């Protein structure tokens, strides 16, 4: 069974979102997602400064199997990206909720975060 931390929010596209003290959100892919993808071999992160609306393709994660689009979970601007993934995409498999984070963004509307799935809802999604 894959791990689902209770302090995070989730999307139906298997991204996780964490709200930081300064209001920024950090985005990554879930343990379930990385398990499904298999060995990860390439990550394309967005440019810092780029703006997205929720649902925009903003990154790509490629495994040995296929390329998967990563969607912006909320509207906002990217403030920083995880540069370590460029040389070590396997960080996502090793530590999806920690060292494998993808990017950090400043949300346009901090309340939008509330609309995401909580860990129970995401767990139900995986079981359905």
């Amino acid at each position, binding site marked *: 069974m894959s791990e689902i931390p209770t302090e995070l929010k989730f999307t139906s596209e298997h991204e996780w979102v964490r709200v930081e003290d300064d209001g920024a959100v950090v985005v990554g892919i879930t343990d379930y997602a990385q398990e499904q993808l*298999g*060995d990860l*071999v*390439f990550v*394309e992160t967005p440019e810092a400064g780029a703006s997205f609306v929720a649902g925009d393709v903003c990154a790509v994660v*490629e495994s*040995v*199997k*296929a*390329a998967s689009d990563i969607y912006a979970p909320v509207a906002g601007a990217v403030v920083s990206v995880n540069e370590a993934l460029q040389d070590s995409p396997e960080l996502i498999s090793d530590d999806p909720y920690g060292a494998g984070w993808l990017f950090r963004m400043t949300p346009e509307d901090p309340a939008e975060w509330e609309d995401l799935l909580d860990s129970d809802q995401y767990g139900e999604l995986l079981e359905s």
Partner: protein
Amino acid sequence: MSQATPLRDAHRALGARMVDFAGWELPLHYGSQVSEHHAARAAAGVFDVSHLALTEVSGRGARAFLRRLLANDIDRLGERMAGLYTCMLEESGCVLDDLIAYRLANDHYRVVSNAATAEPVRAQMRGVARAFPVRLQAQEGHVTLAVQGPQAMELGTAVAGSVIGPRYAAALAALKTFNATNEQGILSARTGYTGEDGFEIYLDAAMGRAFWQALIDAGAAPCGLGARDTLRMEAGLSLYGQDMDATVTPLHCGLKWTVAMDPPQRNFVGRRALEAVWEDPQLPSCRGLVLKGRGILRAGQQVLTPYGEGMVTSGGYSPTMSASIGLARLPKGRYAECEVEIRGAGVPCAVVKPPFVRRNRILVDSE
């Protein structure tokens, strides 16, 4: 309904992620396909390839039948017990399948073809067989194992000794590349689909399970379809359905070398169509690509060369080279660089001659 090989429960017990492949439930990987890839290059890996379609061809017309059916000439094997890699064509010259035909005796052969094409291949065989005194018999429920890697022969010989017997072990150990033995009615051949040393063996279900388990116990890494694909791509070997299919002739997909036009009187299916395009200067060239920029090569991507456009037919990540590589159908011409379109941008690639990797050594410039 998907078909299962006799090893399905063994795969599940090893924690395999099972996937559907051409109607068969098969292991994609057992945790990490990259680790499995490295195991097959560095030591020994074992693959369950029981989905491959087996057809026994026997009778006094067997040899003549195969000389009509196949684009390569079974007579190239002479009196040897060995395998011949060949395409089976339509009259249009297009590739119905690629396969290996083993000569077991004067009037007895085994054809090993792809799972995805099993139906059209058997229909073609039945059709051609009407003109020959030959018997075709599909084999079901068997286990086919591919044991690959620098330690494959050593491990395999030891396992054959304990599971089958010392006589079989001796016959297996003595095999030269591409040669086969049918000692005790069990076929094995020193061949594979990885660019490493090794063999493939054809067993009944009970002995197949025992052989598999003994190999795992002896330290062979169980390897899934994922590693099989990256290993064959590094070895520059074509995959039916990707690098060729029924829309191209062998001349369009780098398999001209497998077509035997001599002797000219051998009238194999598709010969006339191939003769018409044999010297066509517009035929594409099949080359290898090593991605120099960021991303991963994937089948279907467009390639831009100084001589026009081409297409990636197989692409992915090479664990041995830690780079993305691909096989591509490209315009003829002398050039060492091209661009591949990845998500709307042209990414530079080196154009190389496959294989990329053989016997665990990188053979192309990967810098």
